[in-house]
């Protein structure tokens, strides 16, 4: 029996399928492609993958439907959502529906490999690793497993990187934070990082608001972020625009127990 390929790519554009397959091939990953949502589901039934890269707009299904159907069939392979219509709502909704990450089209080879590498590393985190990283404190609200926001008594909000995301980077070389006064939007990038392997990463912002203070400590010592993600590794203190609205798309510890609402970790290959 032929070994299972690493990645399943689902897109209705041939050139995207070929491009992704070519890049992943160069990085030594084996790839299978499907040109529609239904074809993707069939492949998923036939073999198991370490990762799925799925477009949000497919000919027959949309990405959310595909994801829901795969989960309904009991498949928990991690999914990266790509889309040509990369609105902030789509990005947030993808994470809310259980995608592990999003990748707006068009992307470069490095951007693709950064997301793929991160997702594979994330998927490789064992349950015990996850437990070792600890549950989020009760006052923390998470955007998928990408970033978190925590309200402070005075009305400001701290935002930071989810420990799973930080671990999946496998070493942060540097991080760029926006200066005070910058308006951050939920679903848009709020920080640019370079991982130890030199790939560029963007962190999706969990809450819209204006930057009051970026954490200079975290910029100076990026390792803090990995070591104490919920504590001294925070990234920004912001004044939220409409916290109630933003929090609607985030999950707190209590809600995370509902697997329908937030199906977490992927299957191990």
């Amino acid at each position, binding site marked *: 029996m032929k070994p299972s390929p690493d990645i399943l790519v689902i897109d209705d554009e041939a050139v995207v399928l070929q491009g992704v397959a070519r890049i992943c091939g160069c990085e030594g990953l084996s790839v299978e492609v499907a040109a529609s949502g239904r074809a993707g589901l069939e492949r998923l039934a036939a073999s198991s993958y370490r990762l799925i890269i799925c477009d949000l707009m497919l000919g027959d299904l949309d990405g959310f439907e595909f994801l829901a159907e795969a989960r309904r069939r009991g498949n928990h392979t991690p999914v990266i959502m790509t889309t*040509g219509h990369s609105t902030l709502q789509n990005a947030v909704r993808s994470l809310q529906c259980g995608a592990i990450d999003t990748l707006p089209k068009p992307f470069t080879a490095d951007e693709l490999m950064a997301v793929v590498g991160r997702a594979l590393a994330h998927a490789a985190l064992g349950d015990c690793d996850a437990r070792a990283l600890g549950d989020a404190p009760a006052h923390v609200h998470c955007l998928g497993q990408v970033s978190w926001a925590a309200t402070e008594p005075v009305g400001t909000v701290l935002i930071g990187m989810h420990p799973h995301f930080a671990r999946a980077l496998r070493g942060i070389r540097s991080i760029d934070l926006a200066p005070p006064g910058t308006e951050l939007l939920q679903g848009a990038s709020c920080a640019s990082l370079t991982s130890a392997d030199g790939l560029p990463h963007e962190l999706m912002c969990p809450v819209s608001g204006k930057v009051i203070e970026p954490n200079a400590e975290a910029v100076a010592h990026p390792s803090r972020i990995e070591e104490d993600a919920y504590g001294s590794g925070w990234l920004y203190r912001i004044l939220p625009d409409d916290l109630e609205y933003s929090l609607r798309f985030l999950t707190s510890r209590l809600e995370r127990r509902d697997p329908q609402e937030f199906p977490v970790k992927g299957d191990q290959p």
Partner: protein
Amino acid sequence: MIRRTVGRKLTTAVDVTVLLIISVFAIVNIRSHNQNLLAEVERHAIQISQTVKSSTEYDMLMNEPARIHETIRRLGQEESIERIRIMNKAGKITYSSDDTEIGTTVDLGTESCIRCHGVEPPLERLEMKARTRLFQRPHDRSGSLGVITPIYNEPSCWTAACHAHPQSQTVLGVFDVVMPLAAVEAEMRRGQIEMIVFAATAVVALSLIIGVFVRRWVSVPVEHLMAATQHVAGGDLSRTIDETRADELGTLARSFNQMTRKLSEARLQLVQSDKLASLGRLAAGVAHEINNPLTGVLTYSSLMLKRARTREEQEDLRVIVRETIRCRDIVKSLLDFARQSTPRKRASDINEAIRRAVSVVERQLSLHGVVVEQQLQPDLPHPVVDANQMEQVLVNLLVNAADAIGSKGGRISLRSSVLTLSPVGVVPIKQAICPKRHNLIDNEVRFDGKPSIRIKVRCDNEEGFMHLDSVYGRAGHRHGLLLDERRKAQFLCPECSTSLLLENRSCPRCGAPLLAFESPPKGWVETCTRRACAWQRWEEVDASSNREYIEIEVRDNGCGIAHHDLHKIYDPFHSTKGAKGTGLGLAVVWGIVDSHNGSIAVQSEPGQGSTFTIRIPVLP
């Protein structure tokens, strides 16, 4: 058929007046001239008869008939005298310049005698005026003037040696002097002809002069105005009229030009909202389609860049990757712009938004030597806006201003103030129904993005529609049927043809008929039906107080905007910055201001700078 133009009417009126006045003047003048001439001749005749009387008196007393006869004969030869004769009271001619009639007796019934002898007993005294008589000689029809001078009995007559006359006799006889009037009549005719020629010349000359001035001051400007209105009615709003005149027509021309400017602005806004709406749909559809092929280009080129061996290949591929990423940014900004997200509005401090916007671009501005001046009115009311979007608007305007100034340094001034505007020209009419409750709102024809109110117009056997501007008092109405204002038109509901005209009411401004429709729940809106009249009344809204607006002004002293570019600046993808801009900045600004029910206007002079003025209602 000659067209009854204002100029022609005015000229005709003045011509008739001139003709009347000059004719009356000429007639009065001729009459008085004739009377003067006759009076002169009469005076002359009376003088001569007195002279004859005096010169013959002595001879009469001396009873020297031969001498009297000679005197009379000689005087009779004078050219100015036709005939002299002396008659006794019985009518016998005793002396005459005409020898043949001496001794004959005149009939006392003739017109020269009847004045006194027409009554019994004959008059003894005759008024000076009654002594003269005018008559025509039968043979050549030329006129003559006769003067009768009575010879009264005097003491010397009855005391004279001859004792010819008794003392009891009062009138002894009469002198009858007849003078020819041919010369005087010729003089009168000459005067008459002169006067007629003068009057005719004066009438013609005055008509010509008045005609020239009426043409210059009234007809020509009115013709220009007419031509321009016809162009505007045909849709050409770029047509303007010379407004240099200082009179009412100059004022009219200025108002007209202002009206066409406003109209074209309104049309621009209408086109603009259409463009933006279709752009939004287009962008969402296109972005997905473009991003897929771009993904192909970007993945392969970036992969090749990673694997390129030679420096030259790397350089080339780097260009491809860089430019593809630029494409990605353009598509992204297009999507950001087209995103139909509803603004998150809440009461916000505009001054704070201005200060934040300035702080965002401050560094960039100071690098280029641009000074930012802020004149912010403190304690502004807080309008309900999306503060982030307002900030975005201001950042866009500031960046544009900085680009217009360039690297040579300059000045940007920001001003905020609060102003109160009446609801007229601002408040939209959102509902319109006929008395039978049919909806009159027409979503097809829009003004400034807002639906219009459609009304059927019927005039004789022509039928058409008029679309009323749904902004109360702005009166950018569109008349589909070119109505002759003298003809009576009907204004009807397009559904049920119920008349919307108000009986027994007329426009307080121009007197034309009024139409009305209900705008629930805010009562009735009344509108003047005349094309050129902007009168409207909406009592419920007039009763509500004026609305407050925040006005923000961004003024720079940069390069300004060329006049032919002014109407395009809000167009998506219209950019004068070449590769530097995407041409979406002002389109975004327009969209945001529009979504806040605000307005944006620009004034710009190339080389002098530009001023953008934004007005946002304090209450949404």
